[in-house]
């Protein structure tokens, strides 16, 4: 009896040892770091509600890395891109960032994509002195975390202003309504900046309604908005939600143009007739008459067989920005890269980028219009105008 118990105890002990050994073996590959590559990380929503953004951004970053490596790399070494999927969920972004920093020892990060996800990791990036360039997070507070946080796109305060001005001046709207996601900082930030700018111009906000992330039924809010008869409806959210809102808005009898921001990018592939006659602000127009844009679009199409959206262009620019900064710094020392980033002043695919004192670029926005396409129920995106800061 006694011997059996001892035997079981020994078995338990050796089982535990085996499990620990297995863990160590599993972690071994992570310990090996190649010294002839420079590790760059990217955290993108490869799956989830904005996966088209994530996939294209990752592909564009990879294309940039491949081009840079083909041209000789940086400081004689090749760049290596490590990709993590955060599914546009801030908790997962935090885990992804920790993994990239501890396991792959990245010197710089292209990410996050959505503002809530970036906001989740900026404090940590600043503390660890990892240069973080968010290609597309437009929320104003992102760069407040410190001098290691940069962005490649314009801010929501600018974007909201752009759309408010467009509504008031170009569309002649005197009244507006907003329906936004009050659990998403991106949506909230845009609602605030649009409201402030529209009322400053002389317009009136007749109704502001909100919903929560994941809601699918907006009929109650839209019926209320319809009864207040606004001239335009501002819907600052991502394309997957906007497509539902737009359908229900038309059913509720709202026939006026709907306006959006860069979260509408890809709406043409995710909505039908309900978005005809709507406008949204974006970072670039793929059919712009600019050689850099044309080269980028052609290269992306050749490699990935798809037209690059604005976020892909931004990720491409962000990657190049980092590579150029490392070249200028002459080393992978964090402070040196940071100082070199501040000196950025070049024309990229999405425009001339140089950073102001808050590490935000001062850039123009393009306004795109959705019109009836050639195929039934598939709207077409056409360029409308550029708004300079």
């Amino acid at each position, binding site marked *: 009896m006694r011997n059996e118990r001892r035997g079981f105890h020994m078995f338990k002990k050796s089982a535990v040892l085996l499990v620990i050994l297995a863990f160590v073996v599993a972690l071994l590959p992570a310990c090996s770091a190649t010294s002839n590559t420079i590790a760059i990380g990217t955290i993108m929503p490869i799956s989830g509600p904005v996966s088209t953004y994530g996939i294209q951004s990752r592909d564009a970053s990879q294309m940039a890395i491949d081009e840079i490596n083909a041209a000789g790399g940086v400081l004689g070494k090749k760049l290596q891109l490590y990709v993590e999927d955060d599914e546009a969920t801030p908790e997962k972004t935090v885990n992804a960032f920790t993994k990239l920093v501890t396991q792959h020892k990245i010197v710089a990060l292209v990410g996050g994509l959505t503002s809530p996800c970036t906001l989740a990791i900026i404090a940590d990036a600043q503390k660890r002195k990892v240069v973080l360039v968010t290609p597309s997070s437009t929320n104003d507070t992102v760069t407040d975390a410190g001098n290691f946080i940069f962005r490649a796109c314009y801010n929501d305060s600018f974007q909201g202003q752009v759309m408010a001005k467009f509504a008031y001046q170009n569309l002649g709207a005197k009244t507006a309504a907003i329906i936004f996601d009050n659990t998403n900082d991106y949506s909230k930030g845009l609602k605030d900046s649009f409201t402030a700018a529209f009322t400053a111009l002389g317009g009136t906000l007749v109704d502001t309604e*909100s919903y*929560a992330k994941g809601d699918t*039924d907006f009929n109650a809010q839209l019926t*209320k908005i319809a009864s207040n008869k606004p001239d335009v409806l501002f819907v600052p959210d991502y394309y997957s939600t906007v497509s*539902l809102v737009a359908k229900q808005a038309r*059913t509720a009898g709202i026939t006026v143009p709907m306006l959006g921001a860069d979260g509408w990018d890809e709406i043409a592939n995710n909505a039908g007739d309900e978005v005809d006659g709507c406008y949204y602000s974006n970072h670039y127009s793929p059919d712009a008459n600019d050689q850099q844009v044309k080269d980028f679009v052609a290269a992306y199409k050749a490699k990935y067989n798809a037209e690059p959206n604005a976020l892909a262009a931004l990720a491409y620019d962000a990657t190049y920005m980092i590579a150029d900064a490392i070249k200028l710094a002459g080393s992978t020392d964090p402070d040196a890269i940071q100082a070199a980033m501040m000196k950025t002043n070049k024309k990229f695919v999405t425009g001339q980028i140089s950073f102001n004192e808050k590490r935000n670029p001062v850039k123009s926005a393009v306004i795109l219009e959705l019109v009836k396409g050639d195929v039934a129920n598939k709207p077409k995106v056409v360029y409308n105008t550029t708004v300079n800061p």
Partner: protein
Amino acid sequence: MVFLQQLVNGISLGSVYSLIAIGYTMVYGIVKLINFAHGDILMIGAFCGYYAFLWAQGSASPVLAVAFAFLLAMAISALVGVIIEKTCYKPLRNAPRINALITAIGVSIVLENGARVIPFMGPNPRQVSIPEAFKGVFALGGLTISKVQVLTLATSLVLMVVLTAFVQLTRTGKAMRAVSHDMDAAQLMGISVNRIVSITFAIGAALGGAAGVLYAMNFPMINPYMGIMPGLKAFIAAVFGGIGSIPGAMIGGLVMGVAETLTKGFISSKLADAVAFGILIVILLVRPSGLLGKSAREKV
């Protein structure tokens, strides 16, 4: 006028909840198990509807396309329901009820995350292409109701009537009622309990699948997690109306839909979910057996 329109919105939303709640309540009524995976059966039905509409896209008859979607969704959901019952719930039939409840939650998680990795479902939201004839609205004197909403309301009512008739008037229905009264006594009377429970789950899941197709037609963006919230709200609706009672589920769903919509429309959209769950708390405090439920007295 706005109030009437909001009422219409509420009833439409409510009929979606009713449809889901009917499946919940039926399974509980017979097997005394709250199948928390019901919301995910809804999701499976929605994906079946997505593919059915995709394949039927060239076809001339929209009614046929919708019928095909329903058939496909109900068949596959019934199959999934029976498989789940045989593998996960049957072994626990004589265990304490809480075991089966926890298992149901586990099944729900497996279905959601399983759908994420299956390539033809996947984690990304998909847009459902509804047949053209079902887009658009009916305008009746200032009120608008969309065609899909009318279809949803009609389907809920029809299914409620058909289901009640089935349970009350057919032999299988009688067997189901017997099993729900006393499983052992029913077995002694020669009723195959295994067969009846499987049929119950099949019907319940088929209803969930049908609800999924209608949900996808109402809200054409589907993703693997779409069933969680509607499933939860339908569960509250079923409890509110009296879990086990089919008309109760119908009423509960409508009340939930109207309460949610009126809160969003006249109070604040931030309180809508709070009101929904508040209803659950209130009904459990005031009348735990629900509106139409039987208050079972334990005779000691």
